[in-house]
């Protein structure tokens, strides 16, 4: 009998405010340890939190983007536990009444098509500091620069049925967050971290016992960890055992998970309302204002690109992966509106692939939309062929020179002169009389051979359309 997999995800996403959630310290990444701290985020005696309202606005914006309910009155709670990188001995979070509830995210999956994933809640909380044990002998070091950085925790319903669905949800969420500009969501910097709750059951049965895979920050590891955990749980049950409710840690080096702590050892966080902060009240007017400033979302942009520019679903998807990509594309089309489809094709298939090979992305591409657009124009006006254009693009990326300069410099201008093309064709026919006879005798396939020969002789510069046309005529005899 088959197994059904049930997955719910909790995403911790760093809100990209300049200052921390409850004090004025900088949130800049990569500073010397403990240089971005103050008495508040160090948990010094008598210090009090003051809420960063920009972080509230960004959480509301995220809530609106997932069609959620914004609670006009929410509240903060203290989550109590001892750890050296948690200065106050409690984390300020939202437990009973979060700012955002009841949203959703649509995904498309291979096996089950379009799916709507429920988002239970988004609540605000502060990050802890960072403990460092590696390379230290019998001591640990603590960096509290991260202490107090604002996070939103985005909690999904247990609506996903495979690791692929989980990844599709996470990628959509990641894309949305970045489009909204509410988080850098840089996974390597820990700005977008995921806990996965995984269980298995026979279809139709009650939910099985779940385990929680903690603190993963790469899509690849998340998929591996979920797949591993699903297999592990199925084996446990099929061997007659029971899944133990516990937190597990994914070891990406060994590609296996190990138990962190079981339910019995789990902390009792002794949540209670944070008395240092009054209930968080926002007005409907504020919510409406935030809504009015909502940027175009990825799915809206995709539809528009398809409708307005006639793009394929694939190209539209590729070019809306990030706001920078779609902006770059729109700048390109605005400056060179002749053929938006060609622009999209070339950007999606040629430019992005090359940038990837160069370890660059659209933000630091060595070519500007306007230069790239001129290259498109040179294809459009038959100055160069598409094939030559690829070489020109390579040269542009390498040298930073303009398309026209490269075409001029390397003499790549397409040969569209009938006389010159005829001369080349006749020379090639003379040199390959046997093939000419065979072609005329009915071997049509040899046409391609002649095209190749002409292009070779012209070093690719001959106008392919004209070559085709003239070849046909001259070979007819």
């Amino acid at each position, binding site marked *: 009998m088959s197994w059904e997999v049930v997955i719910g995800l909790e995403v911790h996403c760093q809100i990209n405010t300049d200052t921390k959630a409850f004090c004025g310290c900088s949130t800049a990444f990569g500073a010397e340890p403990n240089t971005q701290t103050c*008495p508040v985020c*160090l*948990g*010094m*005696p*008598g*210090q*009090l*939190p*003051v*809420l960063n309202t920009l972080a509230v606005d960004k959480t509301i914006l995220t809530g609106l983007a997932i069609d959620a309910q914004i609670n006009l009155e929410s509240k903060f709670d*203290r989550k*109590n536990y*001892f750890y*050296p990188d948690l*200065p*106050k*001995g*409690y984390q300020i979070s939202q437990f009973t009444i979060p700012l955002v509830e009841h949203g959703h995210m649509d995904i498309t999956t291979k096996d089950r098509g379009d799916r709507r994933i429920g988002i239970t809640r988004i609540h605000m909380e502060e990050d802890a500091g960072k403990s460092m044990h590696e390379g230290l002998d019998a001591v640990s070091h*603590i960096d509290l620069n991260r202490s107090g950085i604002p996070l939103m925790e985005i909690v999904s319903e247990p609506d996903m049925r495979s690791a692929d669905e989980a990844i599709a949800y996470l990628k959509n969420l990641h894309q949305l967050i970045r489009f909204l500009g509410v988080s850098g969501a840089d996974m390597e910097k820990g700005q977008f971290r995921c806990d996965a709750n995984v269980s298995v059951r026979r279809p139709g049965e009650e939910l099985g016992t779940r385990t929680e895979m903690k603190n993963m920050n790469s899509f690849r590891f998340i998929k591996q960890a979920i797949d591993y955990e699903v297999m592990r749980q199925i084996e446990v049950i099929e061997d007659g055992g029971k899944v133990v409710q516990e937190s597990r840690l994914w070891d990406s080096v060994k590609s296996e998970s190990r138990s962190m702590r079981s339910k019995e050892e789990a902390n*009792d966080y*002794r*949540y*209670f309302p944070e*008395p*240092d*902060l*009054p209930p968080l009240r926002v007005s409907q007017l504020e919510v409406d204002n935030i809504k009015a400033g909502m940027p175009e979302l990825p799915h809206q942009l995709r539809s528009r690109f398809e409708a307005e520019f006639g793009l394929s679903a694939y190209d539209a998807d590729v070019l809306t992966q990030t706001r920078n990509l779609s902006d770059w594309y729109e700048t390109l089309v605005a400056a060179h509106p002749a053929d938006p489809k060609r622009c999209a094709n070339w950007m999606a298939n040629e430019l992005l692939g090359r940038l990837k090979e160069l370890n660059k992305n659209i933000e630091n591409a060595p070519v500007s939309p306007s230069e790239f657009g001129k290259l498109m124009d040179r294809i459009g006006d038959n100055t160069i062929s598409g094939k030559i254009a690829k070489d020109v693009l390579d040269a542009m990326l390498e040298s930073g020179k303009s398309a026209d300069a490269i075409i001029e410099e390397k003499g790549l201008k397409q040969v569209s002169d009938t006389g010159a093309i005829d001369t080349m064709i006749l020379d090639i026919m003379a040199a390959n009389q046997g093939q000419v006879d065979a072609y005329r005798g009915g071997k049509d396939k040899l046409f391609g051979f002649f095209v190749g020969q002409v292009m070779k002789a012209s070093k690719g510069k001959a106008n392919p359309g004209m070559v085709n046309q003239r070849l046909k005529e001259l070979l007819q005899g």
Partner: protein
Amino acid sequence: MPFSSLSHIQDRLNTGSTTAVEVAQLYLNRIAAHNDTLNAFVHIDADHVLAQAAASDKHRAEHGARSLEGLPIAVKDIFCTQHGPTQCCSNILKDFHAPYDAHVITKLKEAGAVLVGKTNMDEFAMGSSNETSAFGPCRNPWNTDYIPGGSSGGSASAVAAALTPAALGTDTGGSIRQPASLTGITGLKPTYGRVSRRGIIAFASSLDQAGPMTRTVKDAAMITSVISGHDSGDATSVADAPELDWLAACDKTDMKGMRIGVPKEYFVDGMDAGVRASVEEALKQCEALGAELVDISLPNTKLAVAAYYVIAPSEASANLSRYDSVRFGHRCENPEDLLDMYTRSRDEGFGTEVKRRILTGAFALSSGYYDAYYLKAQQVRTMIQQDFISAFENVDIIATPTSPITAFKLGEKTDDPLTMYLSDIYTLAVNLAGLPGLSQPCGFSADLPVGLQWIAPAWREDVLLGAASAYEGATDWHNKTPQAFEQTSGGES
């Protein structure tokens, strides 16, 4: 002069008949003479006091006087100050120096006050007798075998013995009013949110409020007018609190038309007979001043102690988690591992009463008990608030004894925390309701001071100050001084 009010000293400074340095020196001499007996101060830096006084005299000469120019004010060891240690009378904060001033300390400095030193208190303000202090108990100047009350016992003792003309305390369940009552001085707890808590070491955040402890009602008004006001650094400090004319509120000389509520639940069997007699006499005096006494009921009063001793320890259990020996404070020798460091450091650093409250609070918040304790206590809190709101529909102000008993002997109740907790039975409800309360002297029982407590609606400290001023003007209790401390130079006459 030593037993002068702040406003009297201010008059003398303003007329040039004395200087801030002279005043500071006088009180420093008295501290030198009497602090060994009272243990009211836990930290004094005489040079620093005199330097502040000299700077104040200079400021007066060059720029004129600010509102508290040159006036000595002592502060409880719970207020963080950049100068000198801030230890909350706990071993866990032994030798801790805060790199910042509490907001109210900044306000006092800006007003030209001279900060005298840090006064003794119950450890982390947890206690009603000042006996839980890590620096030893403080004594009551009226009889040094007796406690001064708590937790602001040092501030109370210091003002009562005129080691300072005024002091700041904090009041979480009566910690300003009860010791004021037990030492025969005036103490004001403002409305919750009136005074910023930033830089005041937290005990129970939803209840803590700082206030003055003084010889007169007007002195209390002078200080409160300076330390109150919105602070954007404390989210619970109220931004749109009604402004008051603090000093004008003290001009009242009668109680004509004032309806004073007298809650029957505050006059019960078991209270000290002398306390009852003094308070009843005080109420008669109020009638004579034109007030109308109205019998009222605050039916949920009896639940206040239980609710308080769930809510305050719950908040405290989290507030005191930061004393984990990681970044500051006491750390045990040679910890074996992290858990050992936590447990041993905290075991060594905290005293018995503090541990008792942390455990009580952690228990009340723990999974499976939260609803029965913390949530229930919050419901009771709402009921108590409602009691007061209903009562104030019919009366302008409420009068009660501040404490059911007068000061008790050192050690008398230390083994019996429950009886100790009951000494705050009349003050706790005021904190739970967030209301302003004031205690002023109204007589003696067996040679120990008795306090009269006034309770007003939220933000109506003017009503408190008006009633208390009228009563003070018609009586002489605030002028009584403990004989043993009348001389400045110790036992000599």
